[in-house]
């Protein structure tokens, strides 16, 4: 295939990736609105959104085809994965400790059922 052929293929793939990534970000936004309680919202806020970011970054890399930005894009993806995990954990933990939990939505709750120990939760 000629050189222009390959660039066309890459452009089409890039467009697909960016579109799909944007759709996933939209789904994440809808999820945050629609989910019934905070902990379920954290699922919506972390998962489709991370994959959406990965796809958008892949699309940008395919479109730019410039090795100098690839490192930056990989960095964006890694930091996104590392930080979304920590933020969802911190928000989830805070809500659980503050009692902001819809217990009627939980079929099993092994954290609240646990007998209170001497050791405070989250002690090192």
């Amino acid at each position, binding site marked *: 295939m000629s050189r222009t052929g390959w660039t066309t293929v890459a452009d089409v793939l890039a467009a697909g990736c960016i579109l799909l990534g944007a759709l*996933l970000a939209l789904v994440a936004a809808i999820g945050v609105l629609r989910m019934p309680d905070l902990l379920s919202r954290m699922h919506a806020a972390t998962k489709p959104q991370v994959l959406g970011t990965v796809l958008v970054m892949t699309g940008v890399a395919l479109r730019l085809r410039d090795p100098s930005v690839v490192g930056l894009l990989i960095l964006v993806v890694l930091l996104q994965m590392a930080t979304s995990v920590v933020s969802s954990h911190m928000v*989830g933990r805070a809500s659980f400790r503050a009692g902001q939990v819809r217990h009627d939505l939980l079929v099993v709750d092994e954290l609240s059922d646990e007998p209170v120990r001497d050791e405070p939760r989250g002690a090192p």
Partner: protein
Amino acid sequence: MSPVVRTRRDGTTRSARYRALQPVPLAWLVLVWLALWGEVTPLLLAGGVLVAVLVSLAFPLPPIDLGSRVRPVALLVLIGLFLVDVVRASVQVARVVLARRHVTNAVVAVDLETSSDFITTLVASMLSLVPGSVVVEARRSTHTLYLHVLDVADEAGAEEFRRTALALEQRVLRALPPRPAPPSTPSTTQEPT
């Protein structure tokens, strides 16, 4: 990491200082610097090393002892399955969101087999990105994770998720098997209480 305690000559204790300049974080910081600039020139490399040293001295962090060996093939399997799981997680959440279905959830305790803080952290991070789960609480003394699991219908579903989580831990342990502790140093692993 619990602080390492040194004993002074007069018998009182102080927490041990650690070396601020560690080779792996330094190399990582230089890599980040180069990635931000997007090119490699001798001047940028020198600048990156300078910035990395300054950052390490300004914000010293305790060294992380992996306490693990690395098996490359098992690590590739782990990363590959993890990426598949990330995609599955997004599809699952997207389906739950778009179907407007009423879902019930569960909070499941998963007692990890490992006694390593590093492995616990890694498993917790990976579990947050794979289908269904967000870590709501972690107990370090027993290496127990409490996970909020999306879309669990009944107790059997919770049990099934626990098996998935433990299977992920087994994959991590296969990729990063713990190094046998050298016999001269006393083991620092804590027994579950």
